[in-house]
């Protein structure tokens, strides 16, 4: 009798634990949206999203975050251009071209790459990449190109791990069928295996985009952080994430609300990206 009640009690404990993540996500949504939406309503969604001037200290102050939205988009596109081809090809190498012995060493290396703190990546980019870019393009060396290279490296593990898994999930018979038809190993992988794995590869890219948009502390160190409309690849920019961190420490009143509203917009972006990712993933699993 007694053990039965313990069983039931623990079952409830387990269930309550399981609801914690739901409570967490609901709380996060409430606080991030409730913190930002009043300001957006007062300031006007259009003025906020499409305003090209971020001048919190002017009177009257202006809070347009279009420069930061574009900044985030530009460095994310840059990161995709650099990270996606290298990532997918590396995943192909890991899944189809490297022998077991090397794989045993390389696979944990990718996990290690995912585990290196973003501040270490940022610092590395600051002391190594920034001077190189400065020598080539002049200026401070802190610009869209530097941030794109940094983010391109940082999204590699995400893209590689998910792409590799989806390449491995392609039934071996596809590959064998292609070989039997006389295609080479390389040709079979390129035109049969990779296209079959495309939804997995696509979701790896989407997750990579999420990472790139959300990255903060590494980008702060190398992007220049000027809150103005992007003026060129070799010019500094500010992203949505860095805008929050740079000014939150001293912001007050309306300025502070504007920063929280920046996070609201960022969060909305991320929720949309996550939604796309989950939809693709579910469709792949069911299909």
């Amino acid at each position, binding site marked *: 009798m007694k053990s039965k009640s313990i069983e039931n009690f623990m079952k409830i404990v387990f269930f309550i634990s399981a609801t914690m993540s739901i409570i967490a996500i609901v709380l996060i949504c409430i606080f991030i949206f409730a913190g930002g939406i009043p300001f957006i309503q007062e300031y006007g969604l259009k003025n906020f999203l499409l305003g090209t001037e971020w001048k919190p200290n002017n009177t009257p102050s202006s809070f347009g975050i279009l420069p930061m939205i574009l900044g985030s988009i530009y460095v994310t596109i840059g990161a995709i251009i650099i990270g996606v081809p290298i990532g997918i090809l590396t995943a192909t190498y890991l899944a189809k071209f490297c022998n077991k012995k090397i794989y045993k060493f390389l696979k944990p290396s990718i996990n290690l790459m995912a585990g290196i703190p973003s501040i*270490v990546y940022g610092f590395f980019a600051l*002391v190594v990449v920034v001077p190189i870019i400065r020598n080539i393009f002049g200026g401070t060396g802190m610009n869209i190109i530097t941030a794109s290279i940094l983010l391109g490296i940082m999204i590699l593990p995400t893209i590689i791990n998910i792409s590799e898994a989806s390449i491995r999930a392609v039934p071996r018979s596809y590959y064998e069928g292609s070989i039997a038809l006389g295609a080479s190993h390389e040709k079979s992988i390129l035109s049969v295996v990779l296209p079959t794995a495309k939804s997995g590869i696509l979701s790896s890219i989407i997750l990579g985009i999420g990472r790139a948009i959300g990255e903060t502390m590494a980008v702060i160190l190398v992007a220049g952080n000027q809150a103005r409309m992007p003026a060129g690849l070799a010019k500094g920019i500010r992203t949505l994430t860095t805008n929050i961190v740079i000014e939150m420490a001293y912001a007050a009143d309306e300025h502070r609300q504007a920063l929280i509203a920046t996070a609201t917009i960022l969060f909305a972006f991320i929720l949309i990206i996550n939604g796309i990712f989950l939809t693709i993933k579910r469709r792949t699993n069911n299909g």
Partner: protein
Amino acid sequence: MDRAIKTTIKISAFITFGVLFFIIGYILIMGLPNLDLSLFQLKYTTENVSLFPAMITTLMLIFLTLVIATPIGIFTGFYLVEYAKKGNKRVEIIRIATETLSGIPSIVYGLFGMLFFVIRLNFKYSLLAGALTAAIMVLPLIIRTTEEALLSVDDSLREASFALGAGKLRTIFKVVLSVAMPGILSGIILSIGRIVGETAALIFTLGTATKIPEGLFSSGRTLALHMYVLSTEGLHVKESYATGVILLIVILVVNGLSTLLSNKLTKGNENE
């Protein structure tokens, strides 16, 4: 043509691993000579820029975060794998919640932590606010690894345990858990890595005080935050390198351990 494809693939792999090993090598080589004994003095002053208080704060934060997140994460895993029925609506919602959580950028966690724990619950910048924020952040990781570890346990073990008259709870704790332990542990160890490397979620919750926190409601800074503050100030490049080395070594150890444990898990299953 085949040759060109193969070469391109190999070059890409070479770039990936080349960059990784270059970053690790560069930080280690430039940083190790900067690991000065003065950096390990008990108290931080602007002269010694000691990272010792940050090390202790990091350990305190890891401990507190895991105390909060581990039971919740593991219990959620139990519920999802051992109790809930397949295709259950509730399970689906919990899955979506954890997957969404794992995609939220750390700065959003940080801001939420600031709005909720620091301001609404009035914890101020404190160890507790930092740990609670970090706990929500690592929760999806612990849940996922626990789930995977539990799923990898052969059902015949559970059936054997039931057949011997053990209840569900006993089966989970005495049979399933002992087999799944390495996998769960590797998830916890990876969480330690996340906590050690986190900055954006902690800067507005834990704060950046330079001393060792005196209690749950006292602020401090972790090694990663320390490195961030030093890098943005730009005055203490040497100390930044030194902090980077320590962070990197911690991450190397953490990842090594977790790889070892998950290998153990797959090996254990192969032997059966």
